[in-house]
Every structure is written in structure tokens, then in C-alpha cells.
């Protein structure tokens, strides 16, 4: 109501500028997106034994799920086996399991689906000897995608569980 026209124009200009910045930022984040192999977001490059970087790069900090599923694939179990072995070797770390969903579901359901996926990972790590006291979990639903596009090449990277070493 009664916004003077020049002010309104300035707002529009600011909004446009903001949009450009957002687009630029998004392109960067999608370049950062990781592939299906489980390589982490620090990029390739080793890391000292027992370091968080080693966990991300060499062990693999994330697993992927099929559409609307929280079942572990054989690749996912292989990654989790390596995670469990590493965590059993380096007992000083705690981990937080992030559960995520792709954007092809509704917001509330995906919050629950992310939690269900995180829970599957927690149970698996515990079954491999990791003390449950060291593990927490959180669901992000579909709110924190890593890959941004409108097809399965991105959705398959976003429905994931990430083990964050703390």
C-alpha cells in the first residue's frame, strides 16, 4: 500500500540483484555435488589416518537409497561396514547420522522418511559393534539437497544418509 513508485522500483532492482546472486550461489553448490560412489564434499585428497577427512574421502561418509525406500543396498552396506570398522578403530569420535529425502515427496512425509533412513543406518552401525551412545541422528527431510536438477541424476544423490564425524 502506498509505496512510492521509485522505492518500489528500487526494491524490484534489489530483488533482481538478489536473484542473480542466488543463481550464482546455486551453480556453485551443484558443482560441489558428490557422485554416486560415496566420495565426500571435501573433494579427493586423502587425509591423515584417523582424521575426519580420511573418513569422508577414503571410507565414504554417505549412502544412497532408492525412491521412497529405506532399505540398504549392497553398496550401502559395504560403505557402512567400512564406516563401522573405522569408528571401531577410532573410538574418540561421535557421529551424527543425517537422514535426507529427495524432492519427489511432500515435506512432512519426507521429514519422517529421512528419520526412518537415519534410523536404519544407526541400527546397522550398532549391529556392527559401534556403541549406540556415540550415535545421534537427525532428519532433514527434503530441505537440504546436495544436487540440484529436475531428474533422477540429482534425486538419487539427495536421498541419502550422511555420517557426520564429530
Amino acid at each position: 500500500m502506498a509505496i512510492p513508485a521509485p522505492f518500489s522500483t528500487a526494491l524490484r532492482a534489489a530483488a533482481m540483484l538478489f536473484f542473480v546472486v542466488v543463481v550464482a550461489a546455486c551453480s556453485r553448490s551443484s558443482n560441489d555435488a558428490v557422485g554416486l560412489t560415496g566420495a565426500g564434499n571435501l573433494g579427493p585428497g586423502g587425509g591423515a589416518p584417523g582424521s575426519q577427512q580420511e573418513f569422508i574421502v577414503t571410507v565414504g561418509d554417505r549412502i544412497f537409497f532408492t525412491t521412497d525406500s529405506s532399505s540398504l543396498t549392497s553398496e550401502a552396506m559395504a560403505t557402512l561396514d567400512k564406516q563401522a570398522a573405522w569408528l571401531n578403530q577410532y573410538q574418540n569420535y561421535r557421529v551424527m547420522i543425517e537422514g535426507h529425502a529427495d524432492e519427489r515427496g511432500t515435506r512432512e512425509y519426507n521429514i519422517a522418511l529421512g528419520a526412518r533412513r537415519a534410523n536404519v543406518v544407526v541400527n546397522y552401525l550398532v549391529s556392527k559393534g559401534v556403541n549406540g551412545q556415540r550415535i545421534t541422528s537427525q532428519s532433514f527431510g527434503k530441505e537440504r539437497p546436495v544436487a540440484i536438477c529436475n531428474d533422477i541424476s540429482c534425486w538419487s544423490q539427495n536421498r541419502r544418509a550422511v555420517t557426520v564425524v564429530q
Partner: protein
Amino acid sequence: MTLLTRRSALKLGLAGGALLASSPMAMAQLRIVVEGANFQPLPIAIPDFASSDPSFGREIADIVRNNLRRSGLFLPLDPASLPVRVGDVNATPDFNTWRTVNVDALVMGGVERGGQISSSVRVWDTRQGSQVVGKSYNTDPKSARRVGHIISDAIYEQLTGGSGYFDTRVIYTAESGPKANRTRRLAIMDQDGANVQYLTDGSSMALTPRFAPNGDLVTYMNFADGNPQVYLLQLSSGRQQRLANVGAMTFAPRFSPDGSTVAFSVEQAGATNIYAVGTGGGQPRQLTSGAAIDTSPSYSPDGGRIVFESDRGGSPQIYMMGAGGGNAQRISFGQGSYSTPVWSPKGDLIAFTRQSGGQFHIGIMNADGSGERLLYSSYHAEGPTWAPNGRVIMFFQDPGGNDGPRLMSVDIWGRNPQTIATDSYASDPSWSGLRS
């Protein structure tokens, strides 16, 4: 003053007249009208409102014009094309002048801003030469836009035969920043997108705000504690607190129709079930059980039943149970999955999100699951909310990629899809009742 002229009744009867009766027969007639696609919005002339401050008079008239245009039921004529540019609420119009330019419905208003805002308005049927609305209002000076909304409601109610929905607000999630790390905070605005106020600062993610019936209390999902938790927020005081401490993640809240209770989801060990708790506290009562995801509960307007979403049968579908829980019956059976059921405030319909054929759809069905109708389809659309008159649905749609969500509305006949202009991306709309 409240006489509906035969001519107006005929023109608007498709939406209004039929809806006056609430029987299933009436619904069937409505569908025929929609599928016949022969609806024409009523042309209506609204000169600027008379005022000692002409720009204020124009501003109020603009609010009324925009509301009526966005309803899809009216076609406000270009004010510059009218034979009279400024309304005169006291004189009887020269009906011949208006008939000559084919104006059937004419709104004459005046508004003054002093210690209070006082406004009066008359609506004339120029063919009959009779008045169909004559009202005056006084409001406090901070409520200038509400005067426009209240007048819009008066016109809508008299000419369409249903209750209005313009003097309402929408609470929603305002989104900004890159998609991979987006800020999501609560915001509130008038239903037409004006008067935006931000309610949370964005330091923690806030999602799915839902109005209590009194329009002052809000329940929503807050990530401040790590896993999401259901919070209560009082708009008038700004005070907020966690709804319940159950030692688990809580989300997907919605008020009972009397505002005394919130139904919500609790996740434990991967299983999500529905609970209910009084807003004043107490022990949450478990309403569903099992290993499935049961979420998005919504009460019937009489408070006796809850419709919700569950994937207990495999894919997410819509189920119905008593408000005390137990004996849930599936009511959605179409292809794909169904989510976010929301009961119409009139009780006759349930709005939902459906996913099928690679698309998201916003649809409605009867409360027994029959008569499904899809109103809007796109790459992504979800989260319907009802206008208080049960005729219009708001939801959000997202084109995907680096773009973001926008609020949209559509009427229950699938007509008139409209984007609601917001400063930022916007999602999770919740429509208030008519303000008191």
C-alpha cells in the same frame, strides 16, 4: 438491502446459488457448470472511492478491485474507461449512463481517514435500478487495508451467496538463499500478499505453520533443537514454547477445530505415529501405532474425525479414523500416492496432494474418498489450505532446479489459478478464518 436481483442471481448462480444448498445434488450441478466451461465472470464497475485524499480513495478501490478480480467471479472494468471516475455513495446513480456502457453492477464508495477510518459503500444493479448492498464501516486507522477487504467480502457475499474470504491472513514459510542451504522462516501477510511481517529470524529452520481457529495462536515445526519439534507461537505476544516434550522428534502439527488440541506426528526408531495433546499441556495421547509413517493429521470441522496420511499399505495414502484413534479406513484409491489431506472448513471435501505420472497434483475428494477431482498439476505442488468459505484452495508449487516455491490459489472447480505475489519464495500456506 440484501435483495439479490434476479439478474445477478442468474449470472452468479453457478457458484453462489448452487452452493447455498449443501446437498450432494447441489455439488453435482456445480460440476456440470464447471465442465460446461460456460462461466463468465460478472463485469462490475468500481470507480475510485470518494475521499478528501483522492489517492487514499483510489487505494481502497484498488484493494476491492484486486480482490474481486482475483476471485475469478468478477471482472472489474478498467476504472479509466468508466463514465464516472469517482464514486458518489449518497446519490442515486444515473442508471441510463451505466446501462449505455453495458455495466450491470456498480459499486459506489467513499472513505475518509481521521481519528478513525469511516467508509460507506453501495452496490447497484443498474438494469433493475435497485441497490443490492448498502453498508458503512468504522475501523481504527491502522486497519486501512482491512476496510478494503471487508467491503470486498460484503460485495462477494451479496452477489455470490457464499461467505467471503478477503478479510483473512495467510501464514507461510518464507524461503531465501541457495537451494542447498536455504533459509526458511515464518511470515504472515494479508491473503492478497500485502502487509508481510516476518515472525522468526531464520537462525533455525521453521516449517509448516498452521493457524488456530482464533487466528492468534500458531503451531509449527522448529529445528532449533536439532531434530524438528512442534512449537506454539502466540502472534499477539510473540511468545513461543515447545508443544510437548516426548523425547522424540515431533512434527506435522494441526489444531483441532475448537483450538484446544493439537494433533501431530512423533517419530521413534523410524516409526512415525500420530498423537494429540492439549495446548495447555498434559500427557500426549497416542492415536495410531505400528511401524509405518503416519503423518499430516487434519481434524474434521466437527472435531469427531481425523484424516491423515500413512504408508502402512506401501505407498502413502489417505486414511480416516475417529479423533480418539483406532479403526483407520483407507479412503484414497487412485494411482500413485496421496499426501497432506486437509478437511474443508465446510466439512464436505478433503483437499490433498497426489503424486502420479511423474507429476504432483492438488485435488479434492468427498469425505468418503469418492468424487475425486484434480485442480492443478505441475512438476511439484503440495500443501493445500482452505479459504474459510471452502471455495478456494491455496497451495505451493515449485518449478524445481534452482528456482523456488511460490504460493498459488485455485477454486474448487479448478478455475482461476493465481500466483500470490510474495517478496521471497514461499511455501506451506495456512489460511486463517475470517478476522473478527
